[in-house]
């Protein structure tokens, strides 16, 4: 465990050194916030509520969802790159589990991201856009627990890209495909409760809404009481399942390394 801890810390140091992407990401997020603010205000122009949500609840949801959406991706692309250029073979010989190492690096990036991007943006949103306080006093701890679970699910699930890279070449394409799919099904654009029935049912059978919709909806009170607890249990179930499924398929996939190595 200790070595993964050190890896995570080294990643935090790397992230704080390169600042161009940090500023690009932060400015992009601010622009997006402006956009959704104007868009949802226009949607609510002649009505008090949409889908039983008043404007301020919707804005709160959308801003939180936008911030949570920054955590749904992970190190899959990095892993896929190592698979493609062959450096995975050397990584596999080193005295650590490659997947655990990458997860540690990813969590390091996500911690730096939270401290210097997520929290400041949340503060800006609170001051200038006006987001609500948590729906009830239990909603805050529950949504934080649920968000943490969602982040872990995203981190694990992203490794799928690395497994896929053993068979498919075009990593950028996979990466775009993944992002589009997640943006929609996680509920990052609009709450899943607004979806038409068939789509909402379909989403219920997939792990994606655990990453954004569940924590954000617990915060705004759309998921409350027993529903919230059930949703968190489902999240835990998905986390265990995805963790196991990825490790299993990875075991199968790295057999190909031996074949390539000849």
């Amino acid at each position, binding site marked *: 465990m200790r070595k993964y801890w050190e890896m995570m810390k080294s990643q935090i140091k790397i992230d704080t050194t390169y600042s*161009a*992407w940090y*500023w*690009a990401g932060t*400015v*992009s997020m601010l*622009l*997006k916030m*402006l*956009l959704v603010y*104007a*868009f949802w*205000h*226009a*949607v609510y*122009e002649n*009505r008090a509520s*949409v*889908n039983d949500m008043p404007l301020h609840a919707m804005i709160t949801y959308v801003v939180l969802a936008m911030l949570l959406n920054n955590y749904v991706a992970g190190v899959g692309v990095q892993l896929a790159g190592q698979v493609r250029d062959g450096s995975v073979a050397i990584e596999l010989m080193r005295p650590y589990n490659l997947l655990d190492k990458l997860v540690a690096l990813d969590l390091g990036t996500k911690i730096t991201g939270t401290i210097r991007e997520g929290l400041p943006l949340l503060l800006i949103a609170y001051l200038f856009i006006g987001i609500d306080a948590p729906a009830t006093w239990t909603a805050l701890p529950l949504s934080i627990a649920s968000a943490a679970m969602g982040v872990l699910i995203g981190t694990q699930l992203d490794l799928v890209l690395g497994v896929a890279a053993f068979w*498919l*070449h*075009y990593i*950028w*394409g*996979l*990466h*775009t*495909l993944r*992002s*589009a*799919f997640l*943006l*929609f099904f996680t509920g990052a*654009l*609009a709450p899943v409760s*607004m*979806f*038409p029935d068939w789509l909402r049912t379909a989403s219920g059978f997939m792990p994606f809404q655990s990453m954004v919709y569940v924590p954000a909806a617990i915060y705004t009170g759309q998921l409350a009481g027993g529903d919230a607890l059930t949703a968190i249990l489902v999240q835990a179930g998905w986390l265990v399942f995805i963790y196991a499924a990825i490790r299993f398929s990875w075991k199968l996939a790295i057999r190909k390394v031996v074949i390539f190595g000849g």
Partner: protein
Amino acid sequence: MRRYVKLYWQFFKTRLKVMMEYRVDFLIGVASVLLVQATSVMFVRIVFDHIDVLHGWTFHQLLFIYAIAMLGRSIEHIFFDNLWVLGMEYIRPGNFDRLLIRPVNPLFHLIADRVQQDGFGSLLVGLVVLFTSAPRLDISWGAAEVMLLLLMIASSAAIFLAVNLFFAAFSFWMVDSLPIMATVQGTSDFARYPMNIYGKGIRYVLTWLIPYGFTAYYPATLFMEGSGDRSIAAWSPAVAAASLTIAYLFWKRGLSSFSSTGN
């Protein structure tokens, strides 16, 4: 000029061969961008399940704006995508020097080096969205209207290209300007919605500084009654020409002050 057309054709054929070589990659690429665009249309559909009009705009009017944005962007994406990697794949590793010693315009060479299959995804969705929304607008489509629409889509593509070219040229001074390009491109999303929902500041920036307003919203208003922005809309081709000129001059400027990263 004829030499360049011939040369482009040669480049293009090689690129096609590469695409045919990796068919699965081709499909993944097209599918990925197709899904990106399809989800944004789905998002608008879902919102309009709950409302009838958005600031006076109907679902199909909004789709029409989207269509122009997608088609303009797809042309730029298919043919001019290599500008994105100017820093990463040319300047940083020292590959750009290779282009400089060849007897063609380096910008031409850079652009001809890639045909981006992924763009066909947004072309496809763009066409579907256009054919769904255009007949439902309050306008009778004759030859003149279709010509005008094509001109507007071409202008949209030209503006996407000009803005990207301008910000890619920063790579000559800072090695890789990709983060700046990505951030700037993000602002084009604003032009996909009726721009009268924004405050004056945003409208001013997207009209006069980064003219993304002319990639979708303004051209679309030419075909719709009562937006009040039609007088600006007619300027789209002129804005496109002006932006391309400015961007190219800036590129030239960068090129002349470029010193290689090589040894």
